[in-house]
């Protein structure tokens, strides 16, 4: 019995679809999703994997099938049928990719919005109102006083000034005298980075940490307690905002399990917000080429299981810092040369002093 070809087409279509659906969900290509944002991003990735698997199988299938089926037989010097076009078919395969990318765009847009990609200071509404919505208290006061958007305050400048108040950041930054700059050329707004999720729009983050990237280390300062560390600790389930900048060259803050990345750029402030959902220890990786030892610029992010664990850790840090050099740094960082300052931190972070020395010679020979 000869099965009509349309049934074959249908069968192949069904098998293809099932295969794609299965693989899109079982590819095992991503690490654990440790933040609320990561779960959303993974949903998008899986959807794209489903579509991609389908297209991949279709195209490779047609290629291999043609190579076998339409292979020229020996001695056959005829030409194939002269089919030059087929308007409905061409419209169809213009429309299909168009619909697919439209779908992916809409889905990406949704996810981007849900993870807080649109800081609400964007174009639609009066910038001032919006800006004040996501700003920490002090900054709100500053913004409310001046109205016209053209002279809207340089939020980054404020953030940076704020950050400069913690001694560790200030010491590092002053070493190279890098001025801070308004982050983005947008409509009187700050860094178009990942902000609070829409439900949390208008609320300040539950925890704020300032991060400075420098060749080849990350420095974290906790403005609420004045603690400086080489490792990031955050409690599970609370929204964290990372304010970052860089001291020397561009670095990028990346935690693969968080699915978030943001460049730390000298002269600029940027921020991301996220809510950790799984306790654990993750790698924080610098993802922007920042010199020969770029590959060594890693540290740990510890998501503490409970708020208490986090508080306990913070307590420890406070005790430690009151006993050691840290205090001296906190009191008067200018007494220390940047090298001395860095050596202390980097020892704790497991970076060999030679690297730091190389960094500094590299700087000086410029």
């Amino acid at each position, binding site marked *: 019995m000869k099965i009509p070809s349309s049934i074959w087409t249908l069968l192949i279509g069904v098998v293809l679809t099932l295969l794609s659906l299965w693989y899109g969900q079982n590819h095992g*290509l991503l690490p654990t999703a440790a933040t609320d944002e990561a779960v959303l991003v993974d949903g*998008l*990735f899986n959807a*794209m994997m489903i579509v*991609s698997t389908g297209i*991949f199988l279709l195209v*490779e299938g047609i*290629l291999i099938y*043609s*190579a076998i089926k339409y292979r020229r037989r020996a001695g*056959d010097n*005829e*030409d*194939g049928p*002269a*089919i*030059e*076009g087929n308007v409905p*078919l*061409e419209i169809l395969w*213009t429309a299909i*990719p*168009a619909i697919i990318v*439209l779908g*992916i*765009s809409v889905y990406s847009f949704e996810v981007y919005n849900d993870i807080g*990609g*649109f800081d609400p200071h*964007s174009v639609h509404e009066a910038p001032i109102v919006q800006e004040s919505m996501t700003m920490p208290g002090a900054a709100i006061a500053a913004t409310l006083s001046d109205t016209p958007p053209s002279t809207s305050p340089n939020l980054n400048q404020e953030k940076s000034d704020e950050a400069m108040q913690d001694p560790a950041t200030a010491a590092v930054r002053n070493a*190279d005298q*890098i*001025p801070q700059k308004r982050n*983005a050329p*947008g409509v009187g*707004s700050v860094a178009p980075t990942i902000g609070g999720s829409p439900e949390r729009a208008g609320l300040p983050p539950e925890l704020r940490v300032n991060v400075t990237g420098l060749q080849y280390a990350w420095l974290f300062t906790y403005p609420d307690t004045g603690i400086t560390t080489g490792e990031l600790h955050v409690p599970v389930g609370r929204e964290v905002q990372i304010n970052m900048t860089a001291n*020397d*060259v*561009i670095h*990028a803050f990346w935690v693969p*399990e968080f*699915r978030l*990345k*943001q*460049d730390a*750029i*000298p*002269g*600029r402030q940027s921020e991301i917000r996220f809510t950790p959902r799984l306790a654990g220890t993750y790698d924080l990786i610098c*993802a*922007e*080429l*920042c*010199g*020969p030892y*770029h*590959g*060594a610029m890693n540290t740990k992010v510890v998501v503490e299981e409970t708020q208490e664990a986090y508080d306990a850790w913070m307590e420890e840090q406070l005790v430690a810092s009151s006993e050691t050099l840290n205090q001296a740094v906190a009191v008067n960082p200018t007494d220390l040369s940047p090298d001395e300052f860095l050596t202390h931190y980097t020892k704790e972070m497991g970076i060999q002093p030679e690297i730091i020395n190389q960094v500094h010679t*590299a*700087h000086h020979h*410029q």
Partner: protein
Amino acid sequence: MTQAQLEKTANNPPHIEEPEERHWRDFFGFSTDHKVIGIQYLVTSFIFYCIGGVMADLVRTELRTPEVDFVSPEIYNSLFTLHATIMIFLWIVPAGAGFANYLIPLMIGARDMAFPRLNAVAFWMIPPAGILLIASLALGDAPDAGWTSYPPLSLVTGQVGQGIWIMSVLLLGTSSILGAINFLVTILKMRVPSMGVHQMPLFCWSMLATSALVLISTPVLAGALILLGFDLLAGTTFFNPTGGGDPVVYQHMFWFYSHPAVYIMILPFFGAISEILPVHARKPIFGYKAIAYSSLAISFLGLIVWAHHMFTSGVPGWLRMFFMITTMIIAVPTGIKIFGWLATIWGGKISLNSPMIFAMGFLGTFVIGGISGVMLAAVPFDIHVHDTYFVVAHLHYVLFGGSVLGIFAAIYHWFPKMTGRMMNEFWGKVHAVLTIVGLNMTFLPMHKLGLMGMNRRIAQYDPKFTSLNEICTYGSYILAISTLPFIINAVWSWWYGPKAGNNPWRGLTLEWMTTSPPEIENFEKLPVLATGPYDYGVREKEVDIQAVLNIEPGEPYPTIESGV
């Protein structure tokens, strides 16, 4: 010169006295024959491919183990910087120009390019630029800030190496601008009168699109590099934050060129594939106009997607969305091409010879790069994988799968025309199979590496990634070995290969209507089109080569003065 003399020279057909015969030494001098220049480009760029390939294998050898144990981290960074710079600016881009030089005048029935001397000048900027770049290694201060050379990093690494890098890329950019002007004028002005734009081979369409892109975007790169050069050597602070400059501005300028650059690299080979598939599948190209105009669409859209390289570096949210959407839209014209090609081979009479295997390999691998490209356009996902091995995998599927396989397909296809001899089929197939296997083995695992958390441009990595990296490294050795049969085959066949005859593939485009290799001025008399470029299987249009070549003796060739 007097005005009259000037007018006279300007109106002369672009015709420079050439000797009656070619000697081997013509290939080493300042020749103005587009065919010589084409081969000069191709051979030179292939030599750079080998050099860039050796560097890639050194990079991969370092990455075989998680520790830094093969070269120092500084040298490692120089190696991948030079690898990328060489592969892009000294291999793929010049190879495209090489084919365009060789083929365009033949395909449109002209005797030479519109500006033969300019053509030679454009070529002769390449060897010094390449030698300069590689010499920086010998000076012990090679550039090591990546091929993107982002400041401030590029301003604090070695001054000499970085300065050399800037100089060299500026030279190469200038060369490609000069080439592009020439291609545009030649295609628009010098076609035989019977060839309207819709009778033009698709390779010419793709070179139109490419050249337009080069002319618009390369000057912006030059601008960025000149400013960077000032920052580096004269202490200005355009991009240097210590003096109030902004490093992100450099990124905008850089990517305004460098995203279009991927289309500059790949469009010519889209064109070549559109020539190769119909000939070896014995069918007309499916959807000629759709494929022709999709090249223009790609080149237009290619100009407005650059910030997709900057999704993590601080561009406003709405701008990210804008660039996400424009980037996604490029999938549409690209999809049109891919489906058009598939429909071309569907139901044909496919000869699975080396050019065809490479062309089909091109389709099969490029599509993977295209799919991962659409994924990367999705901002939330790109934020995760930007600057990781996922991107390295993507770019190699596009550039290796899409450009290098295209180059090889084109070499096997046009070799008989260029040399008058056939290449060996058996070794051609060995080459093709090794390349396609090596390519997938090297780059497929990189997708997973990137997704799992391996960032790029690092000499040492987390030991949990070791086994995948080993696979990649052994794959890259297969790639290195794969070029050997090709080199031997090409050299041997050039001298001793079986004679090809004028039209071994029974092609219908004009380049097959003259001798192989073509006589010095291509066509004895002005050729006349007897068929469309892809009229395979159209019985009544059985071609008579003599008819193409010998109609209406004495009709003048078009010049750049004659109408479009």
